[in-house]
């Protein structure tokens, strides 16, 4: 009866139905779970710069929906060649769920290399006895990433600035400020100016990028509907050197398109 319904024994059929007779690879589940899964370093692509240098962009995918992972810089979290080590995240936030799809963290940091750099730059994470690496080279045009604005429907990246005369920029390479000074237990203002350019709004989100301990944000995500400075407060429980990443993104579709948003980084030195 089943075959009759599908018509596979009808005129035109050449063989009776059968299970797929192929040598399928071993099934490797890619399910995002609450705890116990790894974080995968991802090479996103590269961006040629006007001065001839090349920016390599990286992101990560924490395959846990509830487990934030902390992997300090060092033997479990490093980049080679070592001269480029140090900008990568040490805090790996969970994969949020959006529209039924687990999201990852795209283009969280970037490394600029000389234009004649021909080696492979590798970001490696070690976790729970397993090693995960993201080799990066600027030798495939397919990974040449657009930056500030898309030719088609994706939004344009806003301008992010730290103070009137401070660092300013657009795109995933982003401006960096600091180190700023803060104290344990005292709410510290993270302020950044947003220029929306021609767009109606953007969502500015702060992420804990590096640091020795957990922090608390007063507002992690801020809807920005007019250009100007926005501030969120961050509170520290431990001293040390921290890095925060702000991402200004009009809508999540831009992540899938890999265009167009702006990152910015604030370094904060925290003392007791």
């Amino acid at each position: 009866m089943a075959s009759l319904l599908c018509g596979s024994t009808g005129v035109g059929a050449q063989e009776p139905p059968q299970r797929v007779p192929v040598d399928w690879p071993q099934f490797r589940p890619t399910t995002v779970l609450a705890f116990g899964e790894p974080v995968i370093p991802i090479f996103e692509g590269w961006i040629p710069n006007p001065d001839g240098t090349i920016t390599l962009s990286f992101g990560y995918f924490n395959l846990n929906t509830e487990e934030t992972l902390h992997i300090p810089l060092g033997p479990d979290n490093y980049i080679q060649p070592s001269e480029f080590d140090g900008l990568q995240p040490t805090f790996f936030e969970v994969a949020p769920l959006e529209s039924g799809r687990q999201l990852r963290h795209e283009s969280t940091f970037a490394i600029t290399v000389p234009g004649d750099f021909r080696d492979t730059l590798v970001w490696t994470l070690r976790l729970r006895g397993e090693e995960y690496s993201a080799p990066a080279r600027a030798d495939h045009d397919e990974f040449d990433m657009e930056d500030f604005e898309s030719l088609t429907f994706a939004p344009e990246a806003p301008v992010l600035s730290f103070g009137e005369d401070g660092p300013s920029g657009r795109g995933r390479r982003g401006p960096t400020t600091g180190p700023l000074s803060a104290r344990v237990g005292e709410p510290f203002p993270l302020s950044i100016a947003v220029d929306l350019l021609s767009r109606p709004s953007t969502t500015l989100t702060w992420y804990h990028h590096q640091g020795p301990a957990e922090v608390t944000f007063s507002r992690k995500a801020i809807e920005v509907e007019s250009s100007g400075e926005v501030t969120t407060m961050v509170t520290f429980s431990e001293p040390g050197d921290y890095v925060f990443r702000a991402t200004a993104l009009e809508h999540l579709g831009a992540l899938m398109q890999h265009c167009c948003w702006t990152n910015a980084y604030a370094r904060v030195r925290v003392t007791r």
Partner: protein
Amino acid sequence: MNVETERGRTIGHGRVWRGLLALAALGLLVNPAAGAAQDAGPTFTEDVAPILQQSCQQCHQEGGMAPMALTTYEEVRPWTSVIKTKVETRMMPPWHVDKRVGIQAFKNDISLEEEEIRTIVEWVDGGAPQGDPARMPPPVEWPDWTAWELEEILGRPPDLIIRSDPYTINPNGLDQWWEPEGPIEGLTGTRWAMAAETKPTEAGRPATHHANSFKIPLGAENSSGAISRFVVGKRWEIFPEDTGMRFDPGDRVRWNIHYFPIGEPVVDDVLQVGVWFYPEGHEPEQQTVGESGFSSLRAGQTILIPPNGTQVTQGVHVLEKPARIYSLRAHQHLLGKSMTFEAIYPDGRVEVLNRLGWDFRWHITYLYEDHAMPLLPRGTVLVITSEYDNTANNLNNPNPDRWVVYGRRTVDEMSHAQVGITYFNTDEAFERAVAEREETLRRLAVDQEDGDE
């Protein structure tokens, strides 16, 4: 029943094929004189040109989307070794249905028969002789790309034409997506569509990878389904008998158009969708939302393919209503290898409907013959399994050392199926369709027996 006639009967997607049928009917594909030439091996004019006309020249013609024309001996001669390789490996013509398993009756099957492949291979191995120029079949009269193909089939122009906002296609650089949204104008009351066709412009056609139009019902934010989906080799769909898609005043259209640069700009390109309605006041027995998206990911699953590795994902969908599937189309990116569709029936039996190989350069909609459209009872589980290959064995893979994740870029991955599906409103209607199917298959079996005698 000879091969040409059978193939001609099954190929029905456009006037192109009917012109070729005429050639077959005139004996150009079964030419008594060909027997004499056969002794000396195949020649271009007598043996190969008819095959190219039937299965290749739709794209391989001057101004077509293929990189070279294959309409004359002079055009074909430099490419003979490439042609041999492509047809031997079944890379060309693009038809990726696994012939070892599942349903094989499709309206738009352009694959070559084994005998045709053998003819081309022997011709190339024999030095690719031209043969007698006088025996060259007349050139095919190709359809007017600016005309509606369905107008000839349905006997009238479309009742409604929906146009995309103009877009200028950049000549170089990255692929471009154009996703305008706007009102569907010209509706004064509820109407039911029986067919739809997407028509590119002549200038924009070579740059149009795909063009999908989705209907947004009045007051809704999300699409209720695709009005029409254009991909290379597929312009239109006619819904099954007494099956329609509802249109109401106030409905909107959202486009998803993928252009790729062709080296020269195309200014203000506009795509059109023609819609043919059932007579005013007629409400078809079955409603369809057109092609529907079915994921090949389970809930909570994502695409993550290890460097130099492979991956499999699988989506499972329970059909809450009995259904008829009239088409299948896979969608993956560079690492996609195949997509397999299986039905687990309520009684536990499992049947492979089809296994579709995948090549990112082709987004083929496979249109089942009427008598082969799967009829699936309520409670059937549709299992969609995707394979990915991130190794160097995959010649489309630009960087096997990279972890590959879900994303919209070509170098990231996606995996979902577009299934042309119609749901029956009642089990009784489904049972009637099953009974009609049984009768159709019995009749076709008798016809085949008669033909074999």
